[in-house]
């Protein structure tokens, strides 16, 4: 259980769409991970990044990456059969215990950790609706797989209307809560979206679990880099309940750059952009 990278061979690489790839490999330590947990993924001499598990099974583990920066462009150029370094799984993961009905809201590459969550909800017999959004059709992830698994319970939105309903996921979330209040809302996506999701849930009196993101170093709760107020995203999170987030002055507002400098979420997002 030593937290240093293990090199694993990329068994299979799937092109999800223009900008997203899913990488499959064997990594026993993650075979019983919870949806929402993440790995630190090391590309030697490039960088190491926290990446959510987008596939959890005994047979194989998957991660889905948006190709856009130095690290992610690098991983996109690695061919099948080559190795990457992984350590983890880290974080707490979503909790589905005792829940009978849920709405899941996924935004952009936030859909990655939602995939194993959907599997888990179905396995647990939870009545599940999924609202999945992206800027445009080509940004959608796992569309056909989700359609297959959820049928009419899948609701798609795009900012430009190139697929599904034109507009934001939160609009559909509002409609769905109004139609039938779920016991829990699960969500992952841009923090600005999560903030809106929290607001709607609070108003409707529905519990929620939201997945957050901050720049990380250790990933296991030592360095403090990922702090949001007194919370460590890597260890206390990345999944937080709405109750906890409602008390956080930094949620939706403030994040830390690599130096530890506190900046507005907007400035952080410009630096970060995922």
């Amino acid at each position: 259980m030593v937290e240093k990278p293990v090199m694993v061979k990329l068994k299979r690489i799937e092109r999800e769409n223009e900008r997203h790839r899913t990488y499959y490999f064997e990594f026993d330590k993650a075979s019983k991970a919870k949806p929402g947990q993440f790995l630190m993924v090391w590309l030697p001499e490039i960088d190491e990044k926290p990446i959510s598990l987008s596939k959890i099974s005994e047979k194989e583990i998957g991660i889905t990456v948006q190709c856009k920066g130095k690290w992610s462009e690098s991983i996109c150029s690695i061919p099948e059969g080559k190795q990457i370094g992984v350590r983890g799984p880290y974080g707490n993961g979503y909790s589905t215990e005792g829940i009978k009905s849920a709405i899941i809201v996924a935004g952009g590459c936030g859909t990655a950790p939602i995939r194993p969550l959907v599997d888990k909800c179905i396995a647990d017999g939870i009545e599940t609706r999924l609202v999945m959004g992206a800027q445009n059709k080509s940004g959608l992830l796992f569309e056909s797989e989700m359609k297959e698994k959820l049928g009419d319970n899948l609701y798609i939105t795009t900012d430009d209307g190139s697929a599904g309903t034109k507009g934001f996921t939160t609009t559909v979330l509002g409609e769905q809560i109004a139609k039938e209040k779920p016991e829990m809302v699960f969500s992952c996506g841009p923090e600005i979206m999560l903030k809106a999701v929290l607001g709607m849930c609070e108003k409707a009196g529905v519990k929620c679990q939201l997945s957050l993101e901050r720049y990380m170093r250790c990933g296991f709760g030592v360095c403090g880099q990922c702090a949001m107020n007194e919370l460590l995203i890597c260890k206390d999170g990345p999944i937080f309940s709405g109750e906890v987030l409602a008390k956080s002055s930094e949620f939706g507002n403030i994040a830390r750059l690599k130096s530890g400098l506190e900046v507005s979420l907007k400035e952080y997002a410009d630096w970060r952009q995922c």
Partner: protein
Amino acid sequence: MEIEFCGIKMKNPTVLASGILGVNAELLKRVAREGAGAVTMKSIGPKEKQGHSNPTVLEWEHGLINAVGLPSPGYKNMENEFKQLEDCESPVIVSIYGASIEEFEKVTEGIVGYEPSIIEINISCPNTKKEGQIFGCNAETAAEVVEAVNKIAGKIKVMPKLTPQANNIAEIARSCEKAGANAICAINTLGPGMLIDADARKPVLANKFGGVSGPAIKPIALRCVYQIYEAVSIPILGMGGITNGTDAIEMMMAGATAVGMGTATHYRGINAFKLVADEMQHWMKEHNVENIGELVGVVHD
């Protein structure tokens, strides 16, 4: 379990080490609430600094290794944190670093107004080129830094943090004491060391080298504290590899008045401080020790 450490009252002898968790005021207050007798902020530098790229912090079989590289928002950007620290339930130690006497002076000037309980002078970081160890391996330069900081610090206590890489740590401590240090902190991480991944055929840390902490370094830390205790009469904040109550007691017996912990939070959680303080108390009961202070330096008798 109350102690006094160079005039500062602490509810117990455990102290959060610098660079672990202490990036913001709220985490420091959380650690204080979880039992730490005092808390140390992550070392603050003269200007904004990114630190090294990832991987920066890794576990290996016998501890951690890190090359975070002293990231800092810079002392000018930390007003917000200092203000929020006013109601911290435990004394706050502010750790500072610089690449020159002038930088140390600048940072001291910038933070002294917030009146930390102690200013820790980090002259011992093994994973940066310009800051750190170069000051801590030489008795004269170490003393110069202490003297410069001390002048500006006024009545605020100053405590240089030493490196086990120094060839004569006792001499360096003595020279710091003469230069006005009110306490000595020892030790910073050991090394640097290196991890290699045979499959990747590469060093794992992006910086290649990093400071070693945790259980692996305890014997070195004990020896350093033992030697410093024989050399100075100011109190010692001993750290390096402490993870349980017995470790802490051993460190005090070697000569530490208070004990720091960093890596232990990985093995035992943020409440490591309460756990270790409880274990120390349990040990004291079993051994009929009334006052923890009795144990400081006893192995020297």
